C-alpha cells in the first residue's frame, strides 16, 4: 500500500442514547489518491469503527443519500475528491437539519415541504394510456428540464441562510420542483401551486443569496427557479383580478 497517504478525519458524532450534544472524533487513516470523501468514511466504518453511521448508496452522485458538510461546505461526499483537501478533513452532518445520529439527518421535514408543492401532473382531464402520449416539443421540454434534475440531496437546504431562520420556508429543492411542474406543458396546476408559493414561507422568503445554486451538485440552479417562481406567482395573482379563473379545487 505504498500509494497510500495518511489523512486525519475529524468527524461529528452524536448518539442520542449516549450523548447530550454532538461531539467530534478524530481518525487517522491511510487513503488512496483517487478516493472520494465517502471512500474514507466507508473505510472507517468497515475497518476502524463500526459504530459510525452515515447514509450512502449509489456512489455515483445520483441517489442523493450522502450529502454532508465537508470542511464547512455542503458536499455530496461520493463526488468530492479527497485530493482537493489538506491533511485534515472535517466531516459533519448537514447544517440546518436536526441530527438523528452521527452524519444522519432528519428528512421528514423536507418530505412535508416536498409534498406541499404538489409535485405531480395536475390536469382537468387526464388521457387514457391507450390514447397515446401528450405532444411536447423539444423546446417545451427544455423549459423545465433543468429543474427536473434535482436528486433531493439536501445540499441546498444546508447552504441556504433563510432555511435556518424561517422554519416554514419551503426551501430551494421543493420550490424548484413545484416550479418544474408549473413549467411543464402537460400540467395545468400552476394556479394551485402559485397559491402555495405565495403563502407565508413561500417563494418570497427567499433573499436571493444564491447559495443553493452555488452548492447544487447537479446544476439545477434552484435560485433561478425560486426567482422565476416569484415573478410568475405575482403575474398569476395580478391576472386573477383581470380574469378571475374558475379555480379548480
Amino acid at each position, binding site marked *: 500500500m505504498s500509494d497510500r497517504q495518511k489523512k486525519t478525519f475529524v468527524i461529528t458524532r*452524536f448518539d*442520542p442514547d449516549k450523548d447530550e*450534544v*454532538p461531539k467530534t472524533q478524530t481518525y487517522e487513516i491511510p487513503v488512496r489518491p483517487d478516493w472520494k470523501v465517502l471512500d474514507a468514511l466507508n473505510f472507517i466504518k468497515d475497518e476502524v469503527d463500526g459504530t459510525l453511521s452515515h447514509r450512502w448508496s449509489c456512489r455515483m452522485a445520483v441517489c442523493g443519500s450522502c450529502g454532508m*458538510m465537508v470542511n*464547512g461546505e*455542503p458536499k455530496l461526499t461520493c463526488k468530492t475528491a479527497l485530493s482537493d483537501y489538506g491533511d485534515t478533513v472535517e466531516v459533519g*452532518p448537514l*447544517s*440546518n*437539519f*436536526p*441530527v*438523528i445520529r452521527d452524519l444522519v*439527518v*432528519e428528512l*421528514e*421535514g*423536507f*418530505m*412535508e415541504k416536498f409534498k406541499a408543492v404538489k409535485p405531480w401532473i395536475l390536469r382537468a382531464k387526464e388521457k387514457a394510456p391507450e390514447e397515446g402520449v401528450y405532444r411536447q416539443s423539444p423546446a417545451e421540454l427544455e*423549459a*423545465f428540464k433543468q429543474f427536473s434534475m434535482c436528486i433531493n440531496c439536501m445540499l441546498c*437546504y*444546508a*447552504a*441556504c*441562510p433563510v*432555511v*435556518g*431562520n*424561517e*422554519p416554514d420556508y419551503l426551501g430551494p429543492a421543493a420550490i424548484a420542483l413545484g416550479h418544474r411542474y408549473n*413549467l411543464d406543458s402537460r400540467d395545468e396546476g400552476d394556479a394551485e401551486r402559485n397559491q402555495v408559493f405565495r403563502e407565508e414561507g413561500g417563494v418570497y422568503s427567499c*433573499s*436571493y*443569496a*444564491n*447559495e443553493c445554486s*452555488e452548492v447544487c451538485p447537479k446544476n439545477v*440552479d434552484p*435560485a*433561478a427557479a425560486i*426567482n*422565476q417562481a*416569484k*415573478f*410568475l406567482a405575482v*403575474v398569476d395573482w395580478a391576472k386573477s383580478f383581470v380574469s378571475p379563473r374558475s379555480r379548480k379545487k
Partner: protein
Amino acid sequence: MARLADPRAMSPSRPGRTRTAPPVMPPLFPARGRYRSYMLFGACCVFFLLSSLLFLRVVDALAAGPEAWDDLLRQFRHPLYLAYNVAALAGFVFTARRFFFQLFAKSQPPRIGPLPRPPLAVLPPLLGAAWVAATALIFCILWGAFP
C-alpha cells in the same frame, strides 16, 4: 461552536420518533467570498434609503423657491455629502452589477403568458445595452441637452 438555527428548521410538524441534536446554521458564512457579496448586496439597500430621503429634500427645496435651492446646493458641496455620493455610486454600481448581470437574467421565466423569453445568451447583453442607454440619458439630462 456553530451558531444554532431555529430549532424547528427542517423538523417535521410532528416531532421525530427519537431525540435529535438541534440544527446549526451553516458555519461562518461571512468568511466566504460569495457570502460577503450577498451581505454587501443586502447592505447596499441603505444607500437606496438615504438617497430617497435626499431626493425628498431636493423636491422640497425645489418647491420652496430659488433661495432654498441655492442653499441646498451649497450644503451639497460639503465634503461629507461628496463622500456619501461617491460611496452611494459605488453601492449602486455593485447592486446593479450583481442584480442585473448575475441574478436577473437567469431568474426570467421561460415564458410569461404567450411571450417566450429571448434566449438566455442575449439577455445579459440586452440588459447591458438598456443600462448604457439609461445612463447616457441621465447624463444628457444632467448636461442640459434637453431644454
